[in-house]
């Protein structure tokens, strides 16, 4: 199985432009997550969704929005990009069937905002 796919792999974006990062999973996991990874800060949670139709804010949600129309897809939108949103973005999913549920990660999207 493909697991989690993310698109694009990388992108250079002008400040002020909008962009949607795509994330699709084929494991039928109920929970999905978006993280950003910055040097020295580890991974920080942007938004999450415990099930289709619901979303929640993570640690650093400002400037980002998400939707969860179905189980498989969890797009992340930057409405008006700023340079501080330059980062590597990872999408993840988990089953939430038990307490110690493993998160599975996509390969990441490297975004540069100029």
């Amino acid at each position, binding site marked *: 199985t493909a697991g989690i796919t993310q698109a694009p792999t990388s992108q250079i974006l002008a400040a002020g432009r909008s962009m949607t990062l795509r994330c699709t999973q084929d494991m039928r996991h109920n929970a999905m997550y978006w993280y950003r990874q910055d040097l020295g800060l580890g991974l*920080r949670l942007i938004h999450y969704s415990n099930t289709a139709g619901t979303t929640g804010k993570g640690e650093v949600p400002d400037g980002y929005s998400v939707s969860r129309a179905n189980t498989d897809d969890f797009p992340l939108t930057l409405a008006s990009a700023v340079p501080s949103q330059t980062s590597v973005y990872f999408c993840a999913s988990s089953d939430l069937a038990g307490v110690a*549920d493993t*998160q599975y990660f*996509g390969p990441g999207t490297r975004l540069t905002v100029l």
Partner: protein
Amino acid sequence: AQSVTQLDSHVSVSEGTPVLLRCNYSSSYSPSLFWYVQHPNKGLQLLLKYTSAATLVKGINGFEAEFRKSETSFHLTKPSAHMSDAAEYFCVVRDSGTYKYIFGTGTRLKVLA
């Protein structure tokens, strides 16, 4: 509130010597604990996880970690480092009461020939 502290941002070891990556956590509830590895320009891969079944957890590639509740620690070890172990390692905690995973800031492991 839950939190994770990885005590070393960088660790260097010689090939064939033991590896110790330290992690301390803070959790209000019974925690789930994970170690992930990230090789350069790659995504994150699960090394091992603590499920409360056993305090000593064995993972892939010869890694293991011991859950010590009294010390709130979950250190990652490997008896003998290999060049392919050079990567960044993340300790992660999740409270049983939430769906959120909290990541440490990572430890970059360098293996010297």
